[in-house]
């Protein structure tokens, strides 16, 4: 006897404890299985690219913090590098090294958050999340030492940084570098081989290699699918070419691989910070730059390896003190292109995990 069933429209609504921000997915569900999904964007659209056209270059700098609000140092760095390239501004070597240290510390924070939320979505009731937050608090304290802020730092300036490091920064950083590796081992030991974690995330939400390249995925999502592409290695910027580090890649592109890539990248970031601290030169941290910056007319595209992927700023100048057009190549937004293909065919409970493993930040998706 054939049972007559109808697919049901389900709203994984904008206000939801697990969707990492205000993001809505309309899913067509047949029983438990998702047959179609339509992501709805725009709940956090603030028109940052339009605002850029009415602010000067310097006034736009705090707005870049608010793009991916979890990775403010990286956003600052990408924008500042773009404008420096456009205007031909030099950066003192000490500032370059400190920028690298800050960017890598920011990457550690963002990955800890991503991994913690990944386990949270699986239902471990915040326990790994809190364990990782203890380390995140230490890094946030370091940032507070430097620039006084805990979330949106606005630390980098055209031609360097806003403040030099206070004397207590390096000893505190060294203490953190000593205790972090054992913490990473603890996270691995506690949960990486857990049967339930494996059952929920292995071979779940697979993004094949060809589709990852075709869908312009970037960052850990691309690397977990087997593509060894890291801008810090393949198109080095700042002083990254002076550091030795590995680029972890995954094999199959499932949720488990994305988690493992982020876990391994924590170790690599620690390695970079160690080398940067060892080679930190002395000197000033800011080259004088006019307050009303007027870069020559032209355009530039400058990118960095942000923690979610390739973060690029396409800056077009017409010679005045306000940018003509700033376009943000937002990795979270473009990583979501493959969302539909990754979710169809899976069950509802997997949808949250797969979506969480892409690790997006709504500030960047909607700008």
């Amino acid at each position, binding site marked *: 006897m054939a049972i007559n069933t109808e697919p049901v429209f389900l709203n994984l609504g904008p206000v939801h404890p697990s969707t990492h921000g205000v993001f809505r997915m309309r899913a067509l569900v047949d029983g438990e299985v998702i047959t179609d999904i339509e992501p709805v964007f725009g709940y956090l659209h603030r028109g940052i690219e339009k605002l850029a056209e009415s602010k000067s270059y310097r006034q736009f700098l705090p707005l870049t913090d608010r793009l991916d609000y979890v990775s403010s140092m990286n956003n600052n760095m990408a924008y500042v590098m773009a404008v420096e390239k456009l205007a031909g501004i030099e950066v003192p070597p000490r500032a370059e090294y400190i920028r690298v240290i800050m960017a890598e510390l920011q990457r550690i924070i963002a990955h800890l958050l991503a991994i913690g939320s990944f386990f949270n979505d699986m239902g471990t009731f915040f326990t790994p999340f809190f364990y990782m937050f203890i380390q995140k608090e230490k890094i946030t304290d370091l940032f507070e030492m430097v620039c006084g802020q805990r979330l949106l730092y606005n630390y980098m300036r055209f031609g360097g940084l806003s403040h030099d490091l206070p004397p207590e920064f390096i000893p505190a950083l060294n203490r953190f570098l000593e205790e972090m590796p054992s913490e990473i081992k603890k996270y691995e030991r506690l949960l990486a081989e857990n049967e339930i974690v494996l059952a929920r995330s292995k071979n779940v939400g697979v993004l094949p290699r060809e589709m990852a*390249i075709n869908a312009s995925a970037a960052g850990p999502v691309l690397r977990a699918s087997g593509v060894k592409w890291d801008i810090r290695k393949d198109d080095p910027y700042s002083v990254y070419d002076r550091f030795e580090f590995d680029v972890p890649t995954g094999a199959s592109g499932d949720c488990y691989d994305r988690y493992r890539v982020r876990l391994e990248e924590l170790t690599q970031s620690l390695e970079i910070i160690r080398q940067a601290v060892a080679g930190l030169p002395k000197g000033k941290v800011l080259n004088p730059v006019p307050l009303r910056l007027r870069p020559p007319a032209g355009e530039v595209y400058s990118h960095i390896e942000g923690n979610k992927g390739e973060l690029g700023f396409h800056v077009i100048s017409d010679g005045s003190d306000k940018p003509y057009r700033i*376009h943000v190549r937002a990795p979270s937004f473009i990583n979501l292109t493959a969302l539909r293909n990754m979710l169809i065919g899976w069950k509802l409970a997997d949808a949250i995990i797969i979506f969480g493993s892409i690790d997006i930040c709504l500030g960047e998706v909607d700008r």
Partner: protein
Amino acid sequence: MTVGLDYNRIIDVLPEDLASGAVAFEAHGLVIQPEVLTGIAAFLKTEPGLELDYLCSITGVDCTEYFEVDYLLYSLKLNHRFTLKVRLADRSEPVIPSLTGLWLGAELQEREIYDLLGITFSGHPEMKRIFLWEGFSGHPLRKDYGHGH
């Protein structure tokens, strides 16, 4: 180090019918006609030696007399990049062929440009607004938006 390809190298290997669509050579990229966009993009994607298989970003710009759409292409294997630029003179009904047939990654970015700038991408499977709500009138990123709106 990612190398920016010289446009001469591209022009030399383009087949005749596609090369005729190249309008101007600029330091930042090759300006082409909208009609040859899909052809040149497909050629660049598959031609051995070029293999620009990664669409990094699509930018839409409102240069006051015309619209411009920039396509930044990468080759992950050969580690070089190239930019294609398309200029649309028709400001009232700008239309450009969509690249979603070649790259899935073009889908959301083209919707964003349609939403904010009003450029229609023909052949896009779902040409509708993405950030602003249905029923919003106007395209905010245009330079003439906001006056008396």
